């Protein structure tokens, strides 16, 4: 069966060019980039050129870009490292209640080590208030960590204003940009960030690769110990094939970022119009203005997300809801509940996330499947 993939916020299908960029490094060009012989030197140079591309994309210098195993490692490194280098100045950290578990659970572990964390609430659209951030700052606040856009509802946070405040108060600022990198333009200078996490597999690159942008690497610390890769900051033999695929994915994203946005915007409008037309009682979550157009969070009436996702799956449509527990069962989303939604409504909420390969026909078919289901129910 041909699938309709509407779960791009979970991961994306690697671009053919990205896959092709990896193949030589899975086959012939396997040498360790740290070695002195020329095949290795060639690979190391290629990694450098990708680092430079990514740096250019973010408006920074290559020496601030460090390859990691992905968004989770980048978040852990930034938050834990920042807490460590600032520990003599203070122990207070500000974040939000809708962060990704990679940030939330790192913060929780820091709490058990004596740090104090303020988790700011968000409004019903999922936006954290800049004045709340300002009010939460204490003398011993050392770090603010706020995600660029939320992975479940797509809401874009006012990180530029937060960055300005943090910068003015001498507080480090981390932005988890896993959901936005490659999807909306990012200028780390403009955002006033000290750290920014990004991932490859959310932008049509391979899994297992990401970056951490570090504004001042010379005053930062590593959390993994080992060899001298990544300028001594992140040990371990480079995941060469993934870095190659990631580099290609970044270059593609750079050339088509505006087209991608326009495409998602068009599909979003169609999706919302059609759902409103065909399905009684649908409710759209998140901000209308400040949103990643590819993420659409919808609360349905009288049917759980679990049931609806199975109906969609049996029609070859891939979508998701909330988060999954270790075993794979769907849990009501902490993000939706932070936006003031009750647990029951959260359990009726589905996330659709569109991407490059989706067409208007995909959306029309998906809404038809949902509409048919509701029509069948109202009959019986």
């Amino acid at each position, binding site marked *: 069966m041909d699938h309709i993939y509407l779960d791009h916020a979970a991961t994306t299908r690697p671009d053919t060019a990205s896959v092709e960029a990896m193949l030589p490094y899975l086959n012939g060009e396997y040498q360790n980039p740290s070695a002195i012989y020329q095949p290795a030197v060639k690979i190391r140079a290629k990694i450098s050129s990708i680092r430079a591309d990514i740096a250019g994309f973010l408006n920074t210098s290559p020496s601030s870009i460090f390859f990691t195993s992905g968004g989770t490692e980048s978040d852990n490194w930034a938050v834990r490292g920042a807490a460590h280098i600032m520990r003599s100045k203070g122990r207070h950290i500000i974040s939000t209640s809708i962060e990704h578990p990679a940030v939330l659970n790192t913060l929780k572990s820091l709490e058990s080590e004596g740090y104090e964390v303020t988790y700011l609430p968000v409004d019903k659209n999922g936006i954290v208030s800049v004045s709340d951030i300002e009010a939460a700052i204490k003398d011993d606040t050392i770090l603010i960590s706020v995600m660029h856009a939320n992975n479940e509802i797509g809401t874009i946070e006012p990180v530029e204003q937060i960055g300005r405040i943090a910068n003015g108060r001498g507080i480090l600022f981390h932005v988890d940009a896993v959901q936005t990198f490659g999807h909306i333009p990012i200028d780390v200078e403009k955002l006033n960030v000290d750290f920014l996490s990004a991932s490859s597999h959310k932008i049509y690159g391979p899994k297992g690769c990401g970056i951490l942008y570090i504004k001042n690497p010379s005053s930062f610390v590593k959390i993994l110990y080992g060899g001298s890769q990544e300028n001594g900051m992140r040990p371990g033999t480079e995941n060469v094939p993934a870095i190659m695929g990631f580099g290609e994915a970044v270059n593609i994203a750079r050339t088509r970022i505006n087209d991608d946005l326009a495409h998602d915007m068009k599909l979003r409008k169609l999706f919302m119009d059609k759902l409103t037309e065909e399905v009684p009682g649908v409710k759209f979550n998140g901000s209308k203005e400040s949103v990643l157009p590819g993420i659409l969070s919808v609360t349905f009436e009288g049917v759980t997300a*679990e049931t609806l996702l199975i109906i969609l799956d*049996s029609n070859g449509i891939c979508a998701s809801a909330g988060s999954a527990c270790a075993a794979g069962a769907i849990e009501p989303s902490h993000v939706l509940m932070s936006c003031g939604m009750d647990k029951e409504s959260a359990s009726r909420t589905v996330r659709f996330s569109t991407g490059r390969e989706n067409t208007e026909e995909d959306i029309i078919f998906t809404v038809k499947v949902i509409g048919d289901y509701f029509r069948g129910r109202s009959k019986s």
Partner: protein
Amino acid sequence: MGSKVVVGMSGGVDSSVCAMLLKQQGYDVIGATMQIWDPEEGGAGREGSCCGVSAVEDARLVAQKLDIPYYVMNFRDVFREKVVNRFADEYLEGITPNPCIACNRFVKWEALLNRCLEIGADYIATGHYARIIKLPNGRYTIRHSLSDSKDQTYVLYSLTQDQLARTLMPVGQYEKDEIRKMAEEFGLSVAHKKDSQDICFIEDGDYASFIKSMKGTAGTPGNFVDRDGFVLGTHEGTARFTVGQRKGLGIALGHRSYVCDINTTSGDVTLGTDGDLYKTVLYANDINMMGVESFDEDRVYTGKIRYSQTSVNCKVKKIDEDTIKVEFEKPVRAATPGQAVVIYEDDWIAGGGTIIKRQ
């Protein structure tokens, strides 16, 4: 395409073969594992339980091998409310509930069946050793499995006629050895997995600690007394005891003593001899009629008051709309309030209910 059936898959051999048999019979099979308990909350998750991560991984592998769609469905809220909380509450009231029966009734059938009908299924199926049949009187009932040693009809007595009409239990047609052999022949990795045992959400059978951690109390502390009310010693809470219990009483009397009665108001736990536990009459309520519409007062049925007990001849009398009196031909041991009494005619279930008292 055949009828659509959702198979509740625990990752064990029985439900795996159940899915395999139905697929071979031409059904459109979907596999589902019910996530009912968070392993972090204790108990479940260990080897042999039905909802730990390893159980889900086994079930998922079997579903891939059978090439059927597979889902993990979340039933934690209903399980916590209708099974675990009830279990703890009733234990604190001096009643000894059977959580497997409550799980079958409220979670596996009410909740799972409803959810499966929602996704367009015609049936649900389980790997129970029991057979669903339709009697000449038009009613559905559950008949003993062909595999006598594995018979699981007792824990299924509460299923309604509507539920039975939408349930398949293909495993009941076979012996356990045959089921294992079929699993092996088909190359299912779970062919030789151990059977699950005991209550899935409690570790090491330590009910008292579990109830204490759930409810903050292990029942009323009080005295051990003998039949005449003479105080024999003290204990830390009534929830530590169940009728018929001998081990772990925490009191040494120099002779074998058994819990004969629990009074949660006074905290008195009455100890007596094994003989004191035998009674011929019990009363039960919350009655579910299965193979017959009502009990025939003159007929000799057989009754079972626990899973592993052999059935004993009995007569059943209706006391009121929802209460029956069961009189056994010979005394039965430790009929315990909260446990089920299941009444059989031949080898099928006539009906059953929850024991409220014995005399």
